[in-house]
């Protein structure tokens, strides 16, 4: 960023130039932020909102009405709501659109170039989410595929999701999403590919040695999601630093299900907040730090120059120097220009986030006749082993023709609203 920071300083040397040229120079320096255009949208796929429940209707209206940069994010939000409502086709439609955006490669993209520029916040870029949001998108696509009995594609989803976690700064935190490894194994087991299943389970066990591998004859998977997912906040000068906080307004930590009158715990396999926070630094953070440096330096230069000009003007009557008066005015003008550059620099990090994610994911498997299981009761307990009131519910298995089933439950539903 050195060359950028030097720009206003070069302007200071123009003090000897005639006033008109200096003013034109200052105006030219500031032309970039003034000329900034609204970001170009992603190629939007028209969606038919049709007759849908109000919660999903609101989510789809956000897709239609909010800036195109939020297109993927709003489809992700809509997909979870549709999934909660049991509208799996609609959920899949939104997720497919979102995953198209997530997996698209942005090379030589004017939209990305704008987000890198001094005059635009990082949040002006098309949302693709941080790695934890991207792999969660694949996770939900996999859940939908499992519900549809498409085990091949579910496994592909979980594999692709794991790749999204491969860009962590610290090597030990790369591709370490246990739930995706476990589900890869489960899908392989469901198609009878036990060798591949064992490999995936072994990988998962390396990360969680206490993980219980599904029995060879298990045919029903139970997935329970608890709490609210990580929140993104901006910290530091101009909110340039992206920080994560655990979701709030929930206390449940474990999930239990009742089978044959007995309450059985589910295994807490994934902490989504932990995954969000162990990603390490992002390459784009260095770009943002450059913006912050530019903002600070132009502010400092502007303050010094305007201060000098002010002092000189105060002293002018004492010296009675016409020349001093003119030079002070030019320095002051350039100082103001530098301050304007500083105030137009946008170093804020992108803090848009997918609010409807869970805090944690719990799993178990069993051998059962899906048709005979009926409505399975679930409840959720907090860290003190006390049942959290108002969360108990029943869910039924969704099974394919061969009896391979999935029980999917959440302690908190996005259709009821999530804390921002």
């Amino acid at each position, binding site marked *: 960023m050195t060359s950028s920071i030097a720009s206003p300083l070069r302007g200071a040397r123009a003090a000897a130039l005639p006033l008109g040229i200096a003013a034109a120079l200052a105006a030219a320096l500031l032309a970039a932020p003034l000329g900034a255009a609204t970001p170009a949208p992603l190629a939007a796929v028209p969606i038919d909102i049709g007759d849908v429940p109000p919660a999903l209707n609101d989510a789809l209206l956000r897709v239609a009405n909010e800036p195109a940069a939020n297109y993927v994010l709003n489809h992700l939000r809509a997909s979870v709501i549709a999934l909660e409502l049991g509208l799996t086709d609609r959920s899949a439609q939104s997720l497919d659109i979102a995953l198209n955006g997530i997996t698209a490669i942005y090379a030589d993209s004017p939209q990305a170039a704008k987000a890198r520029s001094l005059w635009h916040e990082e949040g002006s870029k098309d949302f693709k989410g941080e790695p934890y949001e991207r792999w969660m998108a694949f996770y939900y696509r996999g859940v939908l595929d499992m519900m549809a009995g498409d085990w091949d594609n579910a496994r592909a989803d979980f594999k692709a999701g794991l790749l999204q976690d491969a*860009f962590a700064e610290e090597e030990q935190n790369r591709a370490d999403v246990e739930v995706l490894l476990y589900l890869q194994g489960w899908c392989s087991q469901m198609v009878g590919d036990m060798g591949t299943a064992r490999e995936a389970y072994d990988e998962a066990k390396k990360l969680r040695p206490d993980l219980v591998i599904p029995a060879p004859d298990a045919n029903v998977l139970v997935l329970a999601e608890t709490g609210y997912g990580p929140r993104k906040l901006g910290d530091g000068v101009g909110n340039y630093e992206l920080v994560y906080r655990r979701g709030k307004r929930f206390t449940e930590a474990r999930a239990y299900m009742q089978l044959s009158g007995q309450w059985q715990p589910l295994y807490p396999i994934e902490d989504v907040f932990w995954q969000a926070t162990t990603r390490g630094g992002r390459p784009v953070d260095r770009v943002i730090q450059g913006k912050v440096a530019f903002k600070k330096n132009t502010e400092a230069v502007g303050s010094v120059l305007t201060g000098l000009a002010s002092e000189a003007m105060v002293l002018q009557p004492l010296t009675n120097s016409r020349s001093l008066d003119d030079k002070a005015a030019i320095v002051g003008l350039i100082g103001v220009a530098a301050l*304007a550059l500083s105030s137009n620099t946008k170093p804020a990090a992108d803090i848009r986030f997918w609010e409807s994610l869970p805090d944690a994911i719990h799993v178990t498997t069993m051998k059962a006749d899906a048709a005979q299981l009926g409505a399975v009761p679930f409840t959720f307990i907090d860290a003190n082993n006390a049942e959290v009131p108002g969360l108990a519910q029943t869910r039924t298995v969704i099974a394919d023709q061969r009896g391979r089933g999935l029980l999917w439950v959440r302690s908190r539903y996005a259709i009821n609203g999530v804390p921002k």
Partner: protein
Amino acid sequence: MSSMKLILVAAVSAVALTGCGGQNVKVNNSKGRATVYEDPNTSGRVQGVGIESQDIVSMTDRMMRDLLANPTVSNRSTPARIIIDSEYMMNESTSRINKNQITDRLRVELNRAANGRMVFVGRQYSGMIESERELKREGKVDAGTIRTTKATAGADFRLAGRISSLDSIEANSGSASRYHQVVFEMIDLEYGTIVWSGLYEFKKSAQDDIIYR
């Protein structure tokens, strides 16, 4: 120019610049883009490292030519009966794909090009066929105009295969590459032998913008 005028100019500039630059317009006022037809043989506007339309077109075209050149399958005195569907096509790759897109295109193109040298059994439509046969046998509808057979067609060969991939990621540069290998095999449904094999492979790599790494 008096200092008062200069100060005035500076002040006006500052106010104007701050005012103009400080707004972050949050309105989607794009003009949009009219619908355009794109050639499925070419890369689309949105690209990744997964399987895309041009890959499906290329691989099915090549497999079709290869199969037509195989005498065991395509040049028998009595045309071979073949099932081409996705039932035994496994996807072990990282790419999500509707396998029917591959097998449907291959079957359709083969059926058109074979010109009677191969007969394709629509096993994926067996439910529809059985229900119509049942109606005919029960006398609820007449026998139609073609013929009556004791049973539906058994097949001589069936397509099987596997889609697999190998991914590599370079965390520092944000580069990703994916190698796909798609194996097609024609299985003798009596003897269990593989009478034809075809392989299609491709590799794609890309580097995302730094703001997404």
